[in-house]
């Protein structure tokens, strides 16, 4: 660690005003006054100041690390290592071993390199214990853009905060700046919005305002009934579908009852994916309800419900080929189709539209 450089910088900084960081306070009092968790020294000349500080290498390094950062980047990196809660000595002990934190599906580790400088590593949380050699290594945060576009099955991820980020990669040896950059690649603007929220400055735009703003093909979305907005949030915004914590409601005074989630970073307005889906739901909700008479056995009714559940929860792949006790099993579902759908695909042979003139559209 380049102690001299840190001392020079600190002495320069004190000339502009007191330095105060995590238990280290240095100010001018004619000479210099230094306060550390161990006590206070007053009336020091510069040589004595330097000597005192050099004996508190960690406090000095801690100040040096944070004085060069500001805004959301500084706040985030401090949060990662619990800088507001953990005293410097305890924190540096932990940093020597490596400290980890989670951010959505990300696992972030910070430790100190041989020169005592913080280094950051990112992985998927599921890979936290993986042998680094088993993971594909990247070193530029922007290199994550392409892999993070696809889930582990190679399917495009239209929503970056969906909990389906791919596994199998690591981005190591990062500076703090690059660490935040990488988090921003994975979950854009989440650090900025998290910081705004912590400083009481999060600008939430609720459903009504968001949909009233829409024009063009999305202009219709403001017609979606109030109760349907609950279903939208339940469909798309719960933690199983999106790791952002939904902070928007129907409007300022009217919260949704659906759980917003527990993630660290907020969702400040309905996203484009939700608005686009809601456009479809708006069209569908314009239809009048009808009563159909469908004849099913009790087990068949339950099976229809099980199929809906399996598709909605994305669990169809988990149902074993021969597990015919699962309603959403493929054989079971094919059997149901063979029995209950007619040649036109009508459930129980009941046409969707009772008017024969419109029947085969």
């Amino acid at each position, binding site marked *: 660690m380049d102690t001299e450089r840190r001392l020079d910088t600190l002495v320069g900084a004190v000339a502009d005003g007191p330095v105060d960081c995590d238990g280290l306070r240095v100010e001018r009092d004619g000479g210099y006054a230094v306060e550390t968790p161990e006590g206070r020294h007053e009336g020091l000349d510069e040589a004595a100041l330097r000597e005192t500080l050099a004996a508190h290498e960690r406090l000095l390094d801690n100040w040096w690390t944070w004085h060069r950062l500001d805004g959301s980047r500084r706040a985030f990196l401090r949060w990662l290592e619990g800088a507001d809660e953990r005293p410097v000595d305890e924190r540096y002990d932990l940093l020597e071993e490596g400290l980890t934190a989670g951010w959505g599906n990300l696992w972030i580790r910070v430790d100190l390199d041989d020169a005592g400088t913080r280094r950051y590593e990112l992985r998927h949380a599921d890979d936290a214990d993986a042998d680094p050699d088993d993971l594909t290594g990247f070193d530029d945060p922007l290199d994550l*853009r392409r892999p993070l576009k696809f889930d582990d099955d190679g399917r495009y991820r239209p*929503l970056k905060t969906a909990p389906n980020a791919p596994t199998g990669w690591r981005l190591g040896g990062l500076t703090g700046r690059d660490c935040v950059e990488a988090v*921003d690649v994975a*979950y*854009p603007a989440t650090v900025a919005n998290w910081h705004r929220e912590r400083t009481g400055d999060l600008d939430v735009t609720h459903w009504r305002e968001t949909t009233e703003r829409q024009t063009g093909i999305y202009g219709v979305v403001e017609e979606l009934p109030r109760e349907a907005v609950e279903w939208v949030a339940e469909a798309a915004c719960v933690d199983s579908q999106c790791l952002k914590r939904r902070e928007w409601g129907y409007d300022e005074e009217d919260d949704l009852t659906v759980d917003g989630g527990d993630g660290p970073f907020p969702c400040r*307005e309905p996203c484009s994916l939700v608005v686009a889906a809601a456009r479809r739901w708006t069209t569908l909700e314009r239809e009048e309800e009808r009563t159909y008479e469908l004849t099913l056995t009790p087990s068949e009714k339950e099976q229809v419900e099980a199929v809906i559940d399996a598709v909605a929860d994305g669990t169809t792949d988990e149902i074993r080929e021969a597990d015919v006790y699962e309603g959403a099993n493929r054989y079971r579902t094919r059997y149901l189709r063979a029995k209950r759908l007619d040649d036109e695909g009508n459930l129980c042979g009941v046409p969707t539209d009772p008017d024969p003139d419109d029947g085969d559209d």
Partner: protein
Amino acid sequence: MTDHRSQALVVVAHGSHLNPDSSAPANEHADTVRASGAFDEVRTGFWKEEPSLREVLRTVEADEAYVVPLFISEGYFTEQVIPRELRLDGWDVSAWDSDGLSADSATLAADDVEKTVHYCGPVGTHGSFTDVLVRRAESVTGDPDVGREFGLAVVGHGTERNENSAKAIEYHADRIRERGRFEEVQALYMDEEPEVDDVTDYFESEDVVVVPLFVSDGFHTQEDIPEDVGLTDDYRTGYDVPAAVDGHRLWYAGAVGTESLTADVIIERAADAGADVGDAVERVRESTAPEPADD
């Protein structure tokens, strides 16, 4: 260091919920500009992806943000959607004082961040974008001097969707024609006459380069146009470059916006709006050249 207000470039583009390649040109051009070092910071923002247009400016640290839309023409997106979503305070399209082709830039503030935003006209209507079309002809043929005995077709939507989109197509077709480099130059449309389906009827030259004036590849450039012009009956089976069609050889390589020289136009847009880009324009022109710099 001189007194320097930090400057960011923000490339804004459409993006897609369905097509993973839609945002690729914006990211690639942003990388090229980043490597040029002309800006303290380079960011991308999208209508359909993240960071969203609503939130991209809060990811920018610099004092000055030069926002360049990676769009082909002026219209609904550049005039309404982008300024609204960026929350550009007091935006009115008259600030561009444009005839549909001449939008340059407007300097505004955004409601949610404390910075100066220079909102630029789209990439596709900048004069330098003509060079990108020519560059595409060079890269698809592998010939830096292509032109003699070659025809060039500029293809886009017609006026049905956006009157200015046809203007942009004609603008570049006219400019290329005036240079006299190609034997023939023709603007063709997907949804009106002269139609791209009849491309071979419009050219005497045996060799024709077909350049779609689109920002990124999607089903228009990868599926419709290859089938419409007869490169293939089924886009899924692919096609040759060049492909023999009705006694002509058609050279086709998808959306022109993927051409790396587009990065140069992005920088020029920002420079026109007052960004200090040094010699980045020349450097990017060189770094994106397919062959050692020609003449």
